[in-house]
């Protein structure tokens, strides 16, 4: 079986996405605490749930990115310049 090689750049990008998702989940939690007037301690006590939400966000970004990539592939659009141009 061939070894799967994930380039360093890709790992960095994915970690960045994960971080953004975690921040977004916390922002959602803060928003919910203010909106529903609940306890600020939930910022800590609901961390496990916030991490869970962060992974859901991350999964959504994967789906979205695959979709965008597929659409681009299908329409022939490419980020790179065509040879000869």
């Amino acid at each position, binding site marked *: 079986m061939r070894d799967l090689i994930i380039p360093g750049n890709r790992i960095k990008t994915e970690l960045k996405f994960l971080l953004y998702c975690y921040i977004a989940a916390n922002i959602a*939690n803060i*928003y*919910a605490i203010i909106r*529903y*007037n*609940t306890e600020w301690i*939930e910022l800590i006590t*609901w961390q496990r*749930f916030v991490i*869970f939400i962060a992974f859901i966000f991350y999964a959504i970004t994967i789906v979205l990115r695959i979709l965008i990539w597929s659409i681009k592939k299908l329409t022939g659009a490419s980020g790179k310049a065509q040879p000869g141009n």
Partner: protein
Amino acid sequence: MLEQNRRAFLRNSLLAGTAVLTPFSLMKLLAGEKGKIISPNDKIHVGIIGTGSRGHHLAYLIKEYGHEIGMEVTALCDVYQPHLDHTHAMIPEAKTYKDHRKMLEDARELDGVIICTPLFVHAEPTIDALETGLHVLCEKAMERTLEATYAMAEAHYRTGKALHIGHQRLFDPKFLRGMNKVYEGDLGKVTQIRAFWHRNNDWRRPVPEDQPELERFINWRLYRDYSCGLLTELASHHIQVANWVKKDIPVDVRGTGSISFWKDGREVEDNVALIFTYKDGTQFIYDSMIQNRRHGLEVQVLGHKGTLELETNNFFLEDPPPQKPAGIIQLLHDLEENVLGKVPIGSSSWDPEVAMTYKGEPIVPENLTDGTWEQFTGFAKAIREDKPIPGLFEEGYYGSIWTLLGQQAIDSGKVIQIPKKYNISKFLM
């Protein structure tokens, strides 16, 4: 701050709370003459008879906090010199005596007496002090026998002097508030009370190696002639509380007990269980042991609307108010409804299963005291007004009598009722 809260609480509710503890009809004072009424500015002088473990502790409390209620210890009495010396070293200005009668001869210098002798030495100094015209705070339980307990009651009613029994839960803010909850119906109909007191030690006090003959004198609570062990030393407190909850005394008691672990020559059980029944069918189930301390001590008052756990300051409703879910859960809920409409995903809701644990609520906001000090507030009030606090003595009396009846139930294996002659309602008419 805490100290201030405690004092304010006591001022506002403790003695008001004594209205709560009048489960029996108001006591008619039999006293003929009123005696001296001390003005609130005068110092109250008390003597302590029995300066062992409890006597020393109470002497310490009065020395430290007595200024709050204008009380000071001016006389100490004990037959055992090392104990007398130990407490005298703490309060050197107090006069010392080896015979309580000698102390009572100097009674004009005293306003009250606190009795912390072993159980079987409660009646004699108590009756002597009452007959000398002094108010008495005697440690629980009242005495070793029904006759001696009754004799103390008779002396109290005859002299009209206060006789407080050291069931300090009567002055414990969480118990006072708890009783209010019971009487105001917050618990609904109370049909069961459960209490237990568990420890894990042999309950022995060290005896000087060169004086083995002091064994029974020092470890009096382990021998039947002097004590009923776990019942008179511990259960008495909770039996008083159960009567207080029910505003009544039991119809009967049944029980069992054994020396099942500490087989070291002691004569009192190390493992007991009792069931008291009240006339409305309520059961008070009690057990005590000294070979496992996992559950410590507790009194649970169980009603159809709520539960009190008095020792640990907890109140639980049977139908707790709905708990507000965490903000993030509410947000998900709204998103589910607004974005997805009513279309369920997988199941009717995709909220994660989050346990809604109801932890109850405290009976009093701060559990600062067990009532031991506060009982002196009541004692000082009785001394200053030269009259007993209505209803207080009866709590101690029936708490003590039913403790002894519990022992009878264990010894005889029979269901025991209170003999008519120990009913003191005749003194209250």
